[in-house]
């Protein structure tokens, strides 16, 4: 039973990272119905930006107390800002002109942007995994034989915090209202005086910043990053978004955690090499019985 709970912890922390990426996927899909395949690479970019900031600050060893907290928040904020800017630039130069084009065009463009980002990262940091300095102390605590690392709590906590903050933003603020309006009917929203370009850019900014925070967290959590990470993580996060009901924020979160748990329990009780099969079989099953995802139907407003 201890093992079960240990895997629960593993699955939740892995799922937290998927969930953070899935939030951005689902937001962008919600507003312009584009599957932004470059999103996974923005996530990887987040970990590289974190590494670059840490290197620039000269941080190589463990820190404690206030400097530690300040560094965590500062580096994460930095990665989020950079990724947000990259996201806005991608939208401006790659997707905006294609907004009214047939749907296949932006989709292929997204794949192209993904390759461009991957190759830029490969040129920048090299084609092999890159270590990220461990500046957070390796602390852990045990509850009834189950070891929980502090960084695991951090991953899950951050994912839940971001989802709640995003939910509040979308449903409680004027800008959020503008986003929902744009998602529902772009032309009507424009007639009501909403700046469509600004609203969509804002969506990309927030979504990419979330990917940046996920990149930072995964860099800290695993202590390494790799230019190609975004490919499989992006695919899993996309699956999470679809599983939960694409366009639905709580759904993306739920999907992320479900996939993380399936992977962890799959590795424990079946076999590590079958985890991908189980994840995607689950996706197929859910789509057969609930075509709009787990939480897809319950919320009419998509963002």
């Amino acid at each position: 039973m201890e093992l079960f709970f240990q895997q629960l912890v593993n699955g939740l922390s892995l799922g937290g990272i998927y969930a953070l990426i899935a939030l951005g996927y689902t937001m962008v899909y919600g507003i312009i119905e584009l599957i932004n395949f470059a999103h996974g690479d923005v996530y990887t970019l987040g970990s590289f930006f974190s590494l670059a900031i840490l290197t620039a600050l000269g941080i190589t060893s463990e820190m404690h107390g206030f400097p530690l907290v300040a560094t965590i928040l500062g580096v994460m904020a930095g990665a989020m800002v950079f990724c947000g800017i990259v996201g806005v630039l991608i939208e401006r130069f790659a997707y905006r002109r294609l907004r009214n084009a047939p749907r296949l065009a932006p989709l292929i463009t997204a794949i192209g942007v993904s390759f461009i980002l991957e190759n830029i990262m490969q040129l920048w940091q090299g084609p092999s995994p890159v270590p990220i300095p461990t500046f957070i102390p390796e602390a852990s605590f045990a509850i009834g034989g189950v070891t929980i690392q502090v960084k695991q709590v951090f991953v899950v906590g951050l994912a839940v915090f971001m989802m709640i903050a995003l939910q509040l933003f979308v449903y409680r603020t004027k800008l959020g209202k503008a986003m929902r309006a744009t998602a529902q009917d772009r032309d009507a929203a424009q007639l009501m005086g909403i700046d469509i370009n600004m609203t969509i850019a804002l969506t990309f900014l927030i979504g990419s910043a979330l990917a940046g925070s996920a990149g930072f967290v995964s860099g800290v959590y695993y202590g390494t990053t790799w230019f190609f990470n975004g490919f499989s993580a992006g695919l899993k996060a996309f699956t999470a978004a679809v599983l939960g009901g694409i366009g639905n924020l709580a759904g993306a979160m739920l999907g992320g955690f479900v996939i993380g748990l399936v992977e962890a329990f799959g590795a424990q009780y079946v076999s590590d090499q079958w985890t991908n099969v189980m994840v995607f079989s689950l996706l197929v099953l859910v789509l057969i019985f609930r075509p709009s995802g787990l939480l897809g139907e319950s919320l009419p407003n998509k963002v």
Partner: protein
Amino acid sequence: MRSFPALARAISLAAAVAMLGTVMGAPVQAATTYKVAVDLPMSGADASNGIPTDNGVILAVEEANAKGLPGGIMLQHQVLDDAVQGVHDPAAGSQNVKTFVADPSVMGIVGPFNSNVARAEIPITNDAGLAQISPSNTNDGLTIGETAKALRQSHPDLITYFRVCTRDHYQGAAGAESAKKLGFKKMYIIDDNETYGKGLADVFEAAYKAGGGTVLGHDHLTKNQQDFKALLTKVKATSPDAVFFGGVTATGGGLLRKQMADVGLGTTPYIGGDGISDEEYLKIAGAQADGSYYTVAAPDIGMASAQAFNKAYQARFKQAPGAYSAAAYSAAWVIINAIADAQKSGGVTRPAVLKNIAGTKNMASPVGPVAFDKNGDTLNGVISFYKISGTPPKATFLNTVSIASL
């Protein structure tokens, strides 16, 4: 990204056709310059393996030219890269070998580095009758049994593929024996599900069981996997004395070791094959590399026969040789000697060179006396065993296991 190899293939095909044209157009002269060709991964993560290995060949060719060869013939070194996007690629390797086959001055190839690339290349050199010597391939199926026969489609009885390192049958057994000596009674086995990694892990498992060890489980990783915590939690629950990994650093060998600490397996020893013998492993596993062991299917560069080579290498390249530099140097000398002998007895042709290589008898080399059996495998199999320890972790040579004892 995916279209790039196709483009490269088209270009090199065009180049090959052009070359063929010049060959047919002009009568083949008794060229006095012959090429020792090299196919290795020369870019990306695999370059840390490829470049020092290629340097061994460069050194051999330069020494041969300086010394002078019979009939005034000269040698030239030519290397082609088989890495695509920084990772060794069988399609690129077979394309390189086709280029070499089309070049009449190529008398032998040193390479490839990776076993799955060799699988793609052997059918081509076998068809062309061009000799190829790998410094580092260890997979059993390349020379032994039905799988090897299937690779020699055109001429099932013609051996064109040789290797100067020994194969995984012995590497796995040496690993198992060393694990037993270290007192590891129960182990967990993980591999990367690739030609080399799974092959090595299976051999290790069989040898370890035969030696009285208990295998607690055997799992396979998924390609591009980054999170191994769930798997390692499962491993930890079986409380192994040590974990064996079959695979290379790039397919998870480094990350797996790094994440062992996260689940409380940080002090559990970790044993691998030559796939984790590179600098890259120390870089990725970081401080966690401490407590790892690995085997290499070549003699340690510290052994007596390699001293002269080490000095020459250091003088020429201003750095220490890589794990397979001496093997590549020896492989190049096998080809060079075969060319020289062919020149003395009737002329340098590919069949003559091939015959001389197969007939190599106890040639002295940095990796010990070189001779091949009927499958193209070396008769002088030596496995070196290393330990990684300290802060920062560094590899130290422990002992040599001769295949005669396995």
